[in-house]
Structure formats: C-alpha cells, structure tokens
C-alpha cells in the first residue's frame, strides 16, 4: 500500500460540551475519491474543516504524504495544496466572480496592483469549462443564482492546482446538467491523481463516484467501506442505524 495523501488520525473537536467529531480517523490516497456520509449534524463538515484549517482540532493528528502536518489556519491548508468547497460556499457577496475566485491570491500587475482584467479573463476561461452558460462576470455574486454561486466556489477550488480537494455538498444547488458536469470534473481530477473528499447525501452519487465511503453518526465514525463491495441499502443502514455490516477497510 502506498503512503496515503492524507491521513487524519483520531480527530476530535467539541463545541461547548457537544462532541461534534469524536476520535474519527479517515484517509485518502492520490487519485482516490472518498465519500463522507452521515445524517445532518453527524460532523462531516466539522471533520473536513479541521483539514481545511477553518477549525483547530482539540485532538488528533494530520499526516500529509506521511509527514505530520500542522494546519492551524486556512493559509496553512493552502500551502499543502488543500482546496475546499465549503457547504456555505464562503463567497464575499459584494464582490464579483473573479474577485471571489482569486480572493487571497490575486493576480497583480508588474507594479503590484490588482490586475482585474487578467483575473476576469482567467475566470472566463475556467467558467467555460464548468458552466458554459455563466455570463454574469461583472455582477456581485449576490446577484447570482444558488447554482451559479456554487459554480464560482467550485471554480475557485479547482483553479489553483489542488492536490487535495474537499467538496462539501458541491452539487446541492446544481441542476441535473451542471451536476453531471461536476461528476465528469471529479473523474477528470481523479485521473490527474488528485485526492478528493466528497461529502454528499446522495448515496447513488457516492457509489458511482467514490472508491471508498466513510460513514459518520453523532460525531463518530461508523465505518469505512469499499463502494464496490456494498449496495446502497448497506450504506443507508450504516447512515441510519449506525451499523457496520461488513467492514472491509482498504
């Protein structure tokens, strides 16, 4: 077995006495898609936010390529080439798509000033790949539809050559065609050797796209299974009952 791209060991965090994530361990290999499943409030978003630097864990260790990583803020995560599509999208509503895409990593001219024209050009290029119908390049993202906003958030995560991609319900607001395009995107990125954590409530989607799936319930890990070995009913019973029928850890 190769060294995992990401290994999260015994991650724990509580919010005011509530154990949102309780000694959870998951891992991710290059070119692999790992699904994270669980009921609302199971702790999926909280778990990946410890990887993306949004939350500092109370306990646990993160290893990137086998080496211990210290991720205390989003800048640290970016330096490990971890990119995140947050469930809340994390867009500045008053800025346009290009400003959001490059937020924190603006392109600058030779004089050090922000190069809006260049950023808009790059944004147009990547949006053509993700959502060809997207045309509102000069409007603040508050004027975009939910799905268009989600496209901007996806574009931001994909643009910067991530090695580790975290997608927290990336298709929640997308139409069928756009969802299909994201599925194709995931397969393409996977082929490029990128590791992806995919949080999704759609069991079919997870079985189709993911190599393995980790199920959480009430902050704890129910189990991790190879998607090839399970049916959707198996996954559903893991999610709902918290039972682990035939654990086959990779």
């Amino acid at each position, binding site marked *: 077995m190769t060294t995992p791209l990401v290994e999260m060991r015994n991650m724990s965090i509580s919010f005011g006495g509530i154990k949102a994530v309780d000694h959870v361990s998951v891992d991710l290999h290059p070119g692999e898609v790992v699904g994270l499943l669980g009921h609302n409030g199971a702790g999926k978003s909280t778990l990946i936010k410890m990887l993306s630097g949004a939350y500092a864990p109370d306990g646990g260790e993160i290893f990137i390529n086998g080496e211990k990583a210290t991720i205390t803020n*989003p800048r640290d995560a970016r330096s490990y080439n971890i990119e995140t599509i947050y469930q809340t999208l*994390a867009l500045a*509503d*008053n800025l346009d798509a290009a400003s959001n895409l490059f*937020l924190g990593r603006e392109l600058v001219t030779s004089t050090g000033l*922000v190069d809006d*024209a260049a950023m*808009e050009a790059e944004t147009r290029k990547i949006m053509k790949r993700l959502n060809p119908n997207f*045309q509102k390049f000069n409007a603040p993202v508050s*004027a975009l539809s939910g799905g268009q906003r989600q496209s901007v958030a996806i574009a931001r995560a994909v643009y910067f050559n991530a090695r580790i991609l975290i997608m927290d319900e990336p298709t929640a607001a997308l139409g069928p065609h756009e969802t299909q395009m994201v599925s194709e995107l995931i397969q393409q990125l996977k082929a490029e050797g990128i590791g992806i954590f995919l949080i999704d409530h759609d069991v079919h989607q997870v079985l189709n796209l993911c190599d393995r799936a980790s199920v959480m319930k009430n902050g704890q890990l129910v189990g991790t299974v190879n998607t090839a070995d399970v049916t959707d009913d198996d996954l559903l019973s893991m999610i709902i009952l918290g039972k682990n029928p035939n654990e086959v850890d990779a």
Partner: protein
Amino acid sequence: MTDTTSQPIPPQRKSFFQQLELDTRLLGMVGAFIILCLGFDFVTEGRFLTPRNIFNLTIQTVSVAIMACGMVFIIVTRHIDLSVGALLATCSAIMAMVQTAFLPDVLGLDLGSPLIAPIAIVVGIAAGTAIGAFHGWLVGYLTIPAFIVTLGGLLIWRNVGWFLTRGQTIGPLDSNFQVFGGTNGTLGPTVSWVLGAIFAAAAVFGIWNARRAKSAHGFPVKPVWAEMVLSVVSAGAILGFIATLNAYQVPQGRLRRIFEARGETLPEGYSIGYGLPVSVLLLIVIAVLMTVVARRTRFGRYIFATGGNPDAAELSGINTRMLTVKIFALMGALCAISAIVASARLTNHTNDIGTLDELRVIAAAVIGGTALAGGVGTIHGAILGALIMQSLQSGMAMVGVDAPYQNIVVGAVLVLAVLIDIQYRKRTGDA
C-alpha cells in the same frame, strides 16, 4: 486559449445614461448637490456661488473629508470609529506642543526653523497611527466591539488632548505649518493651472487606459462617444474648479502686507488670485491614493471582502485581525493629517478642536453611500458627502438660519439620505 469569443450579449435599447455606464447613485448625489448649491445661490441672490464662497467651502470641507476617506474603510469592514474628533484633538495638541514647547525649549530649535513643521508633522502622524493601531488591536485581536473601543477612545483622547495643553489655546503655530491651513497656503494661479492641466490629462488618460485594458482582453467596452463625453466632462470639471479658485482675488490689504514683509511696495493695480489651496491639494492626493488602495490593491480588496463576508475572507486565508489593525492605524494617520489642516486653519491649537467631527465624518461617509451593513462604499462618495454637509451648513448660515436650526436640518438630511439610499438599493437590487 486564444478563443475569447464570449456569447453575444442580447442587444438592448440603452438610455443615454446607461450607455455612459455611470454610477447612478453618484449621479443622484451630484444632482442633489447641484440643486442645493443653485437653491442657496438663488436665496442668497448670487452670494453662494461666488469664487470666494466656493474657495471657503472647499477649505472648510478638507478636514472632515480627509477623515471620511478613512471612515469608509472602517464602516465597510462593519466597524465604526467614534473617536476621530477626539483623536484629531490629541494629535493637534501633540503637534502644537512639539512645535511651540518641545522643539524650542528642549532641543533648542529656533522658532521659525524650517525643521519645526516637518518634525511636528512626523511626530503627529506617528502618534495618530500608533493610537489607531492600538484601537485596531483591541477590536481585531481582543474582539471588543469597535463601538465600545472608540466610545471609550472618544472620552480618553478628548481629555488626553486637554491634559497635554492644560486646556489652553496653543499658538500661534509655526508659519510653515500654517501653509496647510487654507488661506495661508495657496499655490497661486500659474501653479494651479499647471496642476489642473496635469489632473485633467491624468483623468482623460485613466478613462482611455481602462478602455484599452478591457478591449485587450476582449471584454465589452462603452461606445467611443460615451468615453469622449466622460473625458470632456471630467477635464472640464477639473479646469472649471481651478478657474474658480484662481478667480478669488487676494484682498489688497493682505497683498500690501505680503509685499511689505518682502521689503517691497505693492505696485499700483496689481492683483492676483489665490489658486488651489495646499490643503485641498492634500485632500486630492489622499483621495486618489485611497481610491487606488480601495480598488487596485490587495489590502483594499481584502477590506471589501471582509465587509461582504468576514468568514469567507478568513477562510480565503486573509488575516482579518491584522487587517483590522491596519485599517484603524490608517484612520489614526488620517486623523493626524486632518489635525494638521484643522489647527493650521485656526493658526492655533484650541481645546475644542474637532468636537463633534466624529458625527460629521460618519455622516459624510454614510450620505456618500457607505453602507453600515458593510461591504459597500466609495472614497469619492464620502468626499461628496462631506461637501454636501458643509454646503448645507454654510448655506444656511449665509441665509441667516440660527445654529440650532442648522443642526436640526443636518440631522434630518442624514436620516433622509439613508432612507433614500435604502429605497434606491431595493429598487436596483444592489447589495
């Protein structure tokens, strides 16, 4: 990647103003300002729009307008600064004491030494920046609400200012320092024309350069005639402003004294215009720099991003705490610069300098379109807001409205302006 053809934008009938692609909100404010001026001019039978009154209006506006530029950044990031008037007083007191007491008595610099004004200014700006940064640290790192920090600051700095001077008027201030005060420092017609021509050329260059950058990337641009109209209007407004300031003649008595001081006699029939005041030039420079900061620097981008969504900014790797320190430090520096202008205009440091300026500054920013909910605001809007407030006040004084009524009207206008703004944003669907 050479394929830059974007999908055709559906042809629409656009109105004259739509084709100019101007900020309609700004147009509305300019319109309101023009109506206000014409109204006062009518009521005062032509006394409002004289070169003399316009000159005075601009120099009276400078101090509040400079601080309003900084207040835009503060309010855009969802904070507030109630301490600016008090901080101005403390900075003014520090600079007055440095130039009248510390430098002559302790360092033995002669009164009138050319070093006095620069040293006093550097010390003042350093003090303002440090105090502002301290406010920002309390707000950003210790997460005390800015309202509370600066409310405390208002009480503290107003009285630190008093303490430094024992409540006395300090002056007269150094004559080089007084150059920033308005009437005591003007550039004369020739220099003013040269600067005006440079500004006009820069404005026209800016308009066409922006167009060039857009079309280089294949983005849609305005029709050429629209750019021409904008160029002519901008250049015309700048040169008209300079012409007006040049038309205000230095009074004969004052000229005679200037000539006598040089050991000459005033030639018969000699007269000269004031031209652009140094303080107004200072405001223009600050406004341009702050606009560049807001629109074209990372710092400015992060300010607006943080105002729009603080969590998103943090998740994008922006250090929002340090950003808060920098914004308040900048506000402090601008308070110190305003203190230079305000005390130089009075030729003294007075104990009540800057009193109630916090309210004028906040009102100017808000009338100028800065949204208290954060994320939205412009530098030029805030300056126009300051100008509208000052015009209102001066105009009413000229008409003979008593001071209490003036304040009632200014207060009502502030509330009304925000109401109109809310309605406007609802209509246009702006954030």
